[in-house]
């Protein structure tokens, strides 16, 4: 992997890092109908899905932390990793706010060492390894968010999941470009 090789890739990564997500907007959107329209049982089910999503965001934040702290990432990849981590922190904050609005208890973050073990961080030896892991997690997150949409009882939460999926797709696309990987040749390659 060589993020210095292609100026277009570098520019793309740079621009990707400038995009941010409004945590408050998502939290507000999700909380607006949930508290009043759902029964406690359906709300509990939705909170359960949101907590799985929160667990995923905790992991993503820590994965980028492991990458940033590994010494393996060079600029501009390091800056991009930090920018993407900030997006995941916004996702985390929005999910926590939404879960609390719905009367749930947000799942706790684990220790960095636990994430390092579960992600086999000790096997990361190069910048390409770090970015490949990040891309894999981002693709998994994209599909995870798309895959939970039909399960939400509150359709507005489905919209929240779609917005989160869009961010993860943006991350995956930028990382794939940085790694010099081909984008999907066919349409509708995500979700389903």
């Amino acid at each position: 992997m060589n993020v210095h090789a292609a100026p277009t890739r570098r520019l793309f990564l740079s621009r990707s890092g400038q995009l941010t997500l409004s945590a408050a907007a998502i939290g507000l959107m999700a909380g607006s109908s949930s508290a009043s329209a759902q029964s406690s049982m359906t709300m509990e089910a939705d909170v359960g899905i949101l907590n799985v999503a929160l667990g995923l965001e905790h992991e993503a934040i820590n994965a980028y932390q492991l990458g940033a702290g590994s010494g393996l990432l060079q600029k501009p990849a390091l800056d991009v990793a930090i920018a993407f981590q900030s997006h995941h922190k916004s996702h985390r904050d929005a999910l926590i706010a939404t879960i609390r609005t719905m009367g749930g208890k947000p799942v706790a973050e684990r220790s960095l060492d636990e994430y390092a073990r579960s992600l086999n961080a000790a096997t990361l030896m190069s910048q390409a390894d770090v970015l490949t892991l990040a891309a894999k997690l981002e693709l998994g997150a994209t599909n995870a968010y798309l895959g939970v949409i039909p399960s939400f009882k509150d359709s507005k939460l489905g919209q929240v999941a779609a917005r989160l999926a869009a961010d993860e797709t943006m991350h995956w696309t930028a990382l794939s470009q940085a790694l010099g990987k081909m984008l999907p040749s066919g349409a509708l390659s995500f979700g389903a």
Partner: protein
Amino acid sequence: MRLVVLAAGCAAVSPAWAAGDVQRGQQAYEARCGGCHSVDTDRIGPRHAGVVGRRAGSVPGFAYSDALRNSGLTWDAGLLDRWLANPEALVPGQRMGYQLTDAQARAEIVAYLSTLTAERK
């Protein structure tokens, strides 16, 4: 689509998966399941090494829902296909909200899962 029939029709029988199905299944697994699961480590979801033939909700140390832990299910190809299609329909009260609607992708993922032994690591 051959695997769809196999997966749906042989709940207790371990089918002989084609190598291409398993390879596509691994790719689909990494793309569809890799956000939360790994083969050898517990993450947001439990590890999948040895999942076929394993009692549902039985990976030591993983915090399952009561519903799944008490389901009495033992994973086989047919149950995994139903689980991936709609976990809540199979085990009400479980925690996985993910639904994989693509039947071929499900069958290929099940083919891949069927190759994972518990002694991988």
